[in-house]
């Protein structure tokens, strides 16, 4: 894993339009440009490489199938592609039930979980309003948001991780999100 790998500059928006017209090479272009990042994102959610590879594979099939539904007027190609990937990863995660690690084969590659939410936030671009606005939140609140997005934690898992009662986590997180929104505006 290195971040310096050369990535092909691909106009993702155009590539999706071409996928919609049945051009398989355009899908391959998206794969070449974003595949490694997408696998990284899926591994942060799913932890286990084989599941993350499945998520990426399914995501590309869904991108191909649904490319005609992408509307550049309504959103960016990047968020569309990553939304497909995250949705697929999250449903694999919830189907699999991550709290039962019993069937994990020995030696299977598992993502290094050493990076804390604070470290992830620190790695956000300085030019990104998200970074500044998260930094203005209480540490526990920004941690919750990062854990939810980056690692796909549910309300229940978040409550466990933060040592908070499940009954209050939902409204507590909503307040955090609305505070974040005020800053992002």
């Amino acid at each position, binding site marked *: *894993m*290195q*971040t310096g790998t*050369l990535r*092909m*500059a691909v106009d993702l928006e*155009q590539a999706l*339009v*071409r*996928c*919609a*017209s*049945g*051009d*398989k*090479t355009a899908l*391959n*272009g998206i794969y*070449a440009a974003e*595949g*490694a*990042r997408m*696998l*990284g*994102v899926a591994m*942060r959610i799913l932890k286990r490489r084989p599941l*993350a*590879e499945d998520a*990426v*594979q399914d995501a*590309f*099939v869904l991108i*191909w*199938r649904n*490319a*005609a*539904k992408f*509307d*550049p*007027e*309504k*959103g960016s190609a990047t*968020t569309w592609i*990553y939304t497909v990937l995250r949705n697929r990863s*999250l*449903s694999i995660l919830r189907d699999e039930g991550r709290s039962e690690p019993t069937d994990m084969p020995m030696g299977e590659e598992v993502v290094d979980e050493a990076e804390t939410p604070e470290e992830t936030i620190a790695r*956000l*671009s300085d030019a990104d309003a*998200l*970074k500044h606005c998260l930094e203005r939140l209480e540490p526990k609140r920004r941690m919750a*948001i990062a854990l*939810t*997005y*980056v690692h796909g934690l549910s*309300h229940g898992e978040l409550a466990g991780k933060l040592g908070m009662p499940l009954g209050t986590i939902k409204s507590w*997180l*909503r307040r955090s*999100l*609305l505070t974040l*929104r005020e800053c992002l505006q």
Partner: protein
Amino acid sequence: MSPNGPAAGSPLPPEHQALAAEYALGLLSPDEAERAAARAAGNPAFAAEVERWRRHFSGFDRTSPLATLPPDLWSRIEAKLDDTPAVTAEPSLETSRAAELRERGRLPFSSAEAAADSRRRLFGWLWNSLAFWRIGGLAAVAAAIAVAVGLNGQLQQARSAPVLVAILQTPDNQTAAVVNAFADGRTELVPLTTFTVPAGKVLEVWTLWDRQVGPRSVGLLQAMSSSRLKLDNLPLGANQLFEITLEPAGGSPIGRPTGPVLAIGRAAQRI
């Protein structure tokens, strides 16, 4: 990341702002997510709010390390694509923006479309028949996919043997690839050798059936891989030339081959 998105004019109630954030985070149950998707479909302000949250959170995606892709992952994806053809663009996608992109990107055949229109029926892909069925009223995407899967089965026999084959050879007479054209209009490139593609270059596949018309681009490849060629609205016949040239990234800027010919061959009819 415009601070004054569409929602600014018609403020969403805070509970919908938070709901949009939860939806973008992936916190909703499948039922809740479905309801949120329905709300987004009917409420542009809510849809814009969701998109704005997604765009903000997408910063997190860029903090992800790049994972090494297994060498066979693309072929695994590709193997699945044959069973799940792209859903043909809905008329609603044909916005001016899409049309502009199409133009700018010199999508295959955008210029040849008018001329080839009358031939399209003959050489149309399965996709085209899919579009026909959908526009004909069996509109649900799921239904269309089901139809496609059914058609796939029926066409399996017709598809199994190509009606035209072109063997593409390198200048030193090595066989580089085979182009197979099937009765249903599907045309595929099967690589038999690899070419070194320098950074910033792509392989471009061309076909030439009439010197008056000139060569047409039918595909761009980052590397030699099994690919479906975009011949759906071009004529196809014996003696038609196919060639692969090395072109700048994005394909030849002038719509005709500019780089060296790596492989070339003529189509022949199967007996």
